[in-house]
């Protein structure tokens, strides 16, 4: 096993553990921080798969922008210390049973599906930024790019309008 594959497995492990911890936190900021760790681990895994461009994007956009947005909103909400007590009351052990059972079934099926196919190894070659860029400007994805930009515009306008507080009620 080469260094890259080892890296991939280690990073995956870290991501999984961090995610599990993130969703079980009582304090929302702690959860966010664990999630950032998870995202960084995933970025490393992506790099290990020979996709440096998206690894960088993962760090910059996902961990850097989206998670920061989360932090800002939590600050704006300004809910204070009673949230922890709240979470404790909401997050009884009994709550976990149903979802875990359902998810285990689904995950089992997923694993079953995947292992049936098998297939050659991934990540043998590195697909760098140049290749991604060339493929993006190809006619196949041109319309996708345009749509994505329109989506972002829509998100921008929507978020601005919905986020206005105080002066006008919707």
């Amino acid at each position: 096993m080469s260094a890259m594959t080892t890296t991939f497995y280690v990073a995956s492990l870290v991501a999984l553990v961090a995610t599990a911890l993130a969703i079980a936190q009582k304090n929302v900021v702690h959860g966010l921080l664990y999630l950032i760790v998870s995202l960084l681990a995933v970025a490393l895994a992506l790099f290990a798969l020979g996709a440096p461009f998206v690894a960088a994007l993962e760090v910059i956009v996902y961990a850097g922008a989206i998670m920061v947005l989360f932090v800002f909103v939590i600050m704006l909400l300004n809910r204070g210390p009673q949230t922890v007590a709240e979470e404790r009351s909401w997050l009884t052990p009994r709550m976990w049973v149903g979802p875990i059972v359902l998810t285990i079934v689904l995950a089992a099926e997923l694993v079953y599906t995947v292992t049936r196919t098998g297939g050659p190894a991934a990540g043998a070659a590195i697909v760098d930024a140049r290749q991604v860029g060339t493929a993006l400007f190809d006619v196949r994805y041109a319309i996708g790019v345009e749509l994505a930009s329109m989506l972002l515009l829509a998100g921008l306008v929507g978020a601005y309008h919905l986020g206005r507080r105080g002066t006008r009620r919707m």
Partner: protein
Amino acid sequence: MDGVPMSNGLIVAGLLFSLGLIGVLVRRNVIFILLSIEVMLNAAGLAFVVAGSRWGQADGQIVFLFILAMAAAEVAVGLALVLRLNDGLGTLDADAASALRG
């Protein structure tokens, strides 16, 4: 240099997705729900990149890009809605916003 078997990569993505799903189903705080949704999207993206890497093409990464753009837009609007929810109901309890019942 040999790479990671595709099935293994997909299994990792699947497990990450399941964890995100658990988070959505278990947590009552809407912030945590949004968080878990991000986890699920991330896992999906990982799956795409694994698949693209298996074929040695850039398509997987391009789809990851699209997923990223979509996640960003969705988080922006979603968090604005969370602000609204907090203003209107005074709480971040997802179960409190159940007026559309019956």
